[in-house]
């Protein structure tokens, strides 16, 4: 009996990611969910600009490459034109939370029926490790060599918390993939985010705390630990919005 194998929704092409980079785990989880929901044939993925720019090579479904940060706008167009398709974006924090923040916020506010996979590694990976809007206070990057100075550069943005203030979005959850238990939990969240779209519930975003061993200047092992030690305290894991569950709770209270 096969206990574990590469999911069908991933092409048989080696990832270009650095050794130990958890982008690969997140790709696999998205593909496993596509397999389990049987949606590969109608899935349309929108790739970002960032290290995952070549995600279009890896997923075995239709893929479109968006201009930097514009993935939610493209996803909106595809979903509205082809409502039977299952549309997801896969975006880094530079893509989603700097140049693409407007697209993110407005797609959430409109409750577009799309799924957003948001890979937060607290840095611009592809371009060599510059400070991102999600880089932690004091974090050393190429553009903050003495550590992020919040007086000069402002504070990191907590995307799930911020979007949770909107009435629009259906589902917002932050997860990570730095150990087996967290990976299983992340998969559940990603599955829910796709299932919500299948059921027509609206905008679901899963923020995944991910590693960038290369630009954090760490071994892959130390990077997994850095998520526990540094990232989770600033970016707590959990569900930030679940409209369906909230409505059910209200209904239960009223009865």
């Amino acid at each position: 009996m096969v206990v574990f194998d590469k999911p069908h929704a991933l092409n048989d092409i080696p990832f270009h990611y650095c050794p130990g980079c958890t982008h690969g785990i997140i790709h696999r989880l998205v593909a496993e969910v596509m397999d389990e929901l049987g949606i590969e044939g109608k899935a349309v993925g929108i790739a970002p600009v960032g290290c995952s720019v070549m995600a279009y090579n890896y997923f075995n479904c239709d893929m479109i490459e968006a201009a930097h940060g514009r993935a939610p706008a493209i996803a909106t167009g595809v979903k509205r034109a082809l409502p039977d398709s299952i549309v997801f974006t896969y975006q880094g924090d530079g893509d989603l939370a700097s140049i693409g923040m407007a697209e993110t916020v407005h797609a959430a506010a409109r409750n577009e029926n799309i799924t957003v996979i948001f890979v937060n590694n607290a840095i611009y990976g592809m371009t060599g490790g510059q400070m991102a809007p999600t880089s932690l206070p004091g974090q050393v990057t190429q553009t903050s060599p003495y550590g992020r100075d919040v007086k000069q550069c402002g504070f990191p943005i907590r995307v799930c918390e911020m979007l949770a203030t909107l009435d629009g979005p259906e589902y917002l959850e932050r997860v990570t993939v730095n150990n087996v238990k967290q990976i299983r939990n992340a998969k559940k969240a990603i599955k829910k985010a796709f299932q919500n779209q299948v059921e027509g519930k609206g905008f679901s975003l899963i923020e995944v705390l991910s590693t960038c061993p290369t630009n954090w200047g760490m071994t892959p092992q130390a990077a997994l630990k850095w998520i526990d030690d540094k990232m989770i305290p600033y970016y707590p894991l959990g569900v930030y919005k679940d409209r369906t569950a909230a409505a059910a709770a209200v209904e239960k209270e009223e009865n």
Partner: protein
Amino acid sequence: MAKCKLTFKTDNCKGCGLCVDVCPKHVLALAEDQINKKGHHPVVAVNPEACIGCAFCATMCPDCIIKVEKGE
């Protein structure tokens, strides 16, 4: 105990070692005496009989290198 089978896409392994660290039975190691096409020391099973087929290794592997089979 059910027999388990591990298969590796050795040429694509990046030698990150995440699978080695997560294995509860110390089945895996990076082959210090081998270099694959990518220039990494790839994963090998040094203690395959001890494998319990939990697939923790494959779950942690960012590159889908490991296939795990259990029983018949």
